[in-house]
């Protein structure tokens, strides 16, 4: 990228940063920049993609409208550059949106399959291959979502989805603005693009009350599975359950039989209550057949130490595999991310867990747990490719607390995810990496419809604050990892003990806290609490990402005093009181209680004058929301600072209006930021 290109891209980025609404002039302005700088189209496209990927969920749609406006009004080369990764750009945003925004996006997609209205060019906006991939994914996504909904028995779930609704954005009335700027028309361009009529509905979708989008019946997989007899499957399953029950009855203390039984019953519930894709049925059938066979206590092979070669970002989506590798093989090759010895079984087993349990020979419960944890890498390590597979006994199914059958919500998708591994390589020769972690592998754009992608989609649910899982959350332990098993005296505090290799413990630093923040590297547990914390943590990242900060002259603050330090309570950015409760953008202004008013510590012009009414000195408090020292219970009136309470008392009779706390760096978010419970203690990030 030439330096000029970088400059243009930076300008474009600046303008994008300000785009928070579906604003016609701003979108039009961005389109003009793109139009006038087609020689830098690549850099601009990259910037736009990055912005859509990284900006807050509620700002993604306006940015997508920019994309839409550019491809329709400018066309090539943007259609080429943006088309390459459109799948990812679109889907990454789609999965974290609320249903209203999703509809709007579906509306956009629909128009991309058509020619630009009133254009002489009859070709669709984007190449059919590009849009088709997205459509396939949408079908799959909806299937999963519907099933999740069915499973979760929480009809309101869609509305509770992560992304925040944007009540203030009147997209029904403001489609991407028609571009009437005359110079847009380049008469000699064969692909001349006329402004499309505003009637082209964007946001007001569905405008006619007809069902959303008439999707062509695209099968996610060409494999015909209609021959599968659902009833037969149910019968087989029932038989298997009966046998397992017998086994369990004759040996009630066998934990693994018990777990197996629970898993089978879970499967049965799913079969009964849901409409599954033929593929899924096929896989379940295979599974049942496999489980019905008497099993020998064979140790399974863990994935070889080396995971697959680094996934190189490929602009071309990979083809869907024709035949998904056998589920059993996949499962055999997939270890849970945490060592079985060190992690309590989550309250609700995932379907994948269930299936694994089903296949695990009960005898294996006696297999000694070795150190599989170290070999299940959080990321696919690249070098060196070790070809010797490491023999690791199958971890015994952890003695499970009864899996909560009502809430295996994430499960089906996990199962689904395993249907479409990233590449159609036979599982036996290519180890399947832990998809959860692969999903975090930044340089690898998940292949469409791949396991990673679906898991990503599910992650989206988790990270955005609404735990998919409705398992009740236990009261917050004091430390973030109190749930981790104890180390006890595993590592003695002696010089000799320091030298002993204990690689298995390293999983405590990685796999046990699998949910990494890609911005800063902080990790979170994959528990409901962990997800909540991560959501608040991500919110914090957004909060402090202030593009204008540099211009405002930030300075170092004075250190706090000894007394303040002794009394100081660290505030973790993931603790609940750091986050606003209201939806961002909501206009509701919460009136602050008088004593919660504050002013920034004044500069020299005012000095540190005491309150003119009571003559008491003000004390500096570190206020997290302002990221600055402030005086609490203070108002500024006519250039002087009073205690807010003193002033209120004084002004009661006089009818003088009390000024409100000045706008903070956070702009309108300020209104919903909770005020500190106590002015006593200073706080910081």
């Amino acid at each position: 990228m030439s330096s000029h290109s970088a400059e243009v891209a930076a300008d474009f980025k600046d303008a994008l940063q300000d785009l928070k609404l579906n604003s016609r002039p701003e979108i039009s302005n961005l389109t003009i920049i793109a139009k006038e700088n087609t020689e830098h189209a690549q850099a601009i496209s990259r910037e736009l993609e990055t912005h859509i990927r990284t900006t807050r969920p509620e700002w993604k749609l306006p940015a997508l409208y920019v994309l839409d406006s550019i491809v329709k009004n400018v066309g090539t080369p943007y259609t080429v550059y943006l088309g390459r990764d459109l799948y990812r750009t679109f889907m990454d945003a789609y999965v974290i949106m609320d249903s209203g925004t999703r509809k709007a996006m579906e509306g956009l997609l629909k128009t991309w399959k058509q020619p630009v209205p009133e254009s002489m060019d009859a070709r669709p906006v984007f190449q059919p291959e590009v849009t088709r991939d997205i459509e396939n994914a949408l079908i799959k996504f909806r299937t999963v979502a519907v099933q999740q909904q069915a499973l979760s028995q929480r009809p309101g779930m869609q509305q509770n989805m992560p992304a925040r609704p944007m009540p203030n954005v009147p997209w029904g009335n403001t489609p991407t603005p028609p571009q009437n700027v005359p110079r847009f028309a380049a008469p000699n361009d064969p692909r001349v693009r006329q402004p499309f009529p505003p009637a082209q509905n964007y946001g007001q979708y569905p405008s006619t009350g007809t069902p959303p989008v008439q999707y062509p019946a695209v099968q996610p997989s060409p494999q015909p599975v209609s021959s599968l007899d659902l009833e037969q499957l149910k019968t087989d399953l029932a038989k298997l359950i009966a046998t397992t029950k017998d086994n369990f009855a004759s040996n009630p203390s066998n934990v693994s039989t018990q777990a197996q039984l629970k898993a089978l019953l879970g499967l049965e519930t799913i079969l009964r209550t849901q409409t599954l894709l033929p593929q899924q049925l096929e896989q379940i059938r295979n599974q049942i057949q496999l489980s019905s066979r008497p099993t020998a206590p064979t140790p399974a092979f863990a994935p070889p130490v080396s995971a697959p070669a680094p996934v190189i970002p490929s602009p071309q989506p990979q083809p869907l595999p024709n035949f998904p590798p056998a589920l059993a093989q996949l499962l055999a090759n997939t270890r849970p991310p945490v060592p079985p010895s060190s992690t309590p079984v989550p309250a609700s087993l995932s379907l994948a867990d269930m299936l694994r349990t089903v296949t695990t020979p009960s005898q294996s419960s006696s297999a000694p747990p070795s150190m599989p944890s170290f070999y299940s890498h959080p990321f696919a390590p690249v070098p060196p490719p070790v070809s010797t597979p490491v023999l690791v006994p199958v971890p015994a199914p952890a003695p499970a607390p009864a899996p909560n059958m009502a809430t295996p919500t994430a499960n089906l998708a996990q199962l689904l995810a395993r249907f479409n591994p990233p590449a159609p390589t036979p599982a036996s020769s290519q180890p399947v990496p832990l998809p959860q972690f692969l999903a975090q592998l930044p340089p690898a754009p998940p292949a469409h419809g791949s396991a990673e992608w679906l898991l990503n989609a599910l992650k989206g649910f988790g990270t955005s604050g609404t735990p998919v899982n409705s398992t009740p959350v236990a009261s917050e332990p004091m430390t973030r990892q109190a749930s981790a098993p104890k180390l006890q005296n595993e590592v003695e505090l002696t010089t000799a003990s320091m030298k002993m290799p204990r690689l298995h413990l390293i999983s405590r630093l990685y796999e046990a806290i699998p949910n990494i923040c890609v911005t800063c590297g902080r990790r979170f547990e994959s528990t409901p609490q962990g997800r909540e914390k991560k959501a608040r943590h991500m919110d914090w990242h957004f909060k402090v990402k202030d593009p204008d900060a540099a211009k405002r002259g930030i300075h170092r603050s004075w250190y706090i005093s000894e007394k303040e330090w002794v009394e100081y309570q660290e505030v973790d950015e993931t603790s609940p009181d750091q986050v606003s409760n209201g939806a961002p953008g909501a206009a509701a202004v919460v009136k602050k209680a008088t004593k919660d008013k504050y002013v920034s510590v004044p500069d020299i012009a005012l000095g540190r004058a005491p309150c003119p009414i009571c003559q008491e000195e003000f004390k500096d408090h570190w206020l997290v929301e302002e990221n600055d020292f402030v005086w609490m219970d203070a108002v500024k009136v006519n250039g002087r600072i009073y205690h807010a309470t003193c002033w209120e008392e004084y002004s009661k009779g006089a009818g003088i209006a009390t000024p409100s706390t000045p706008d903070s760096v956070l702009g309108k978010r300020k209104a919903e930021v909770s005020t500190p419970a106590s002015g006593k203690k200073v706080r910081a990030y």
Partner: protein
Amino acid sequence: MISLPGLNLTSAPPELLSDPQSTLTRTQDLSANTEYRFEVAFTRSLTIRLLSGTAEFFGTELAPSSAYTFQGTKGAIYTWHGCRLEIVGEAESEYTAEETQMMSYANAHFALESLREKSLHTGDIGPRVLVVGTENAGKTSVVKILTSYAVKFGRQPVIVNLDPRQGMLSVPGSFSAAAFSSIVDIEDGWGSSPISGPSPVPVKMPLVYHYGLANPEEGKLFRPLVTRMALAVTSRLEEDRASRQAGFIIDTPGAISQGKAGVYENIEHIISEFSVNVLFVLGSERLYSDLTRKYSNRIPEESVSVIRLDKSGGCVHRDETYMKQFRQAQIRAYFFGQAGDNALGPNSQMVDFDDLSIFKIIEASSEHNSSFRPGGGGDDDDAYSSGIEIYEKVTPSSMIQNSLLAITTASVNDGQEVIRDSSVRGYIYVADVDDLKKKVKLLSPQPGHTPPNAMVLGSFPEDIPGLVG
């Protein structure tokens, strides 16, 4: 006092050399349990990005695909699982090391975790750790690793820095303590103390004292300050459950591990004031055996586990030139922040001579030195606190130009011990002294009023000419 905010302040950063070579991008594959060691000059920069796998920098994990830029840094990217890095820029030296001490440092962490688990039940203070060792043995690196791992485990340890040669969350010449509840900054030493705006990595809240000398073995300040800090940290742990359970870790200067005839007065003083119960000795066999002998036969309540940790082969000697640049960079960062998006805008102001009450530390002559009672037993600080002249009051003159003044929390009328024991609000820099007009141009971290408190001037850190360009 007049505030002159518009004085057009720019820091004078070392000029970045840029040549086409230095922007070459390369990838570096690391296999599990190895590290990529590098040294980058202050005039260059090296940007490292994790492409795949996992990697950590002194215990803090690199976020996938984030770019980390290092300048004036000697360090290592370690991987437990193998990784691929993308590296841009020019290193003075770089190589991959197969043999590291990370397993033993991780073991040290896990051993401390066992103690923390216990303190969760007993309610007692968690492990009280002291790290000693000769210069450049890797003490600070180990403290960082232990801190990062503890934070990753959701702990909130208090970290205490008693090494004046290198500040923690503050300038050199200071001692500080801070509880770490958020990740340790990768690019910026220990991270940043609070600033008036958003910070991309959560800021840390330090308690800062001014020591003002280079060597802890001289002068009358080291031990009383240790006593004072022990008091503050202990009080904090009374109130703060999370930190209480996590305990604290103390980093020290190499000088106190020198010892005199096998006696280590300052180490002993720290151990007794902070009730240290875990002592990590880095490197030196001799130091280890001396300290083991001293602490092995104690009654259980006062027992100290003395553990030797091997020195990492990556530790490099840092010569005076490097250390000086390092200190200047720390001071510059205090006022100006990190270059780029995280820049800070300090404030310049003109004050009258009368506005400044400067207390200069009297440097101990060799005779003064002998006033330390040999053999330690410095449990009571009265022995060296009453009636001793610690400071002399000085009027501003060109002598103080380019130096750093510590603004204490003590009033100008307070006794010398009070001034000595008081924490500092911050530092100001004397940019210019006009002897004729009796005016001083100061650089203050923030606009407004500099507190009219007692200010302390020490001989360390040394003058920093040209901080304001």
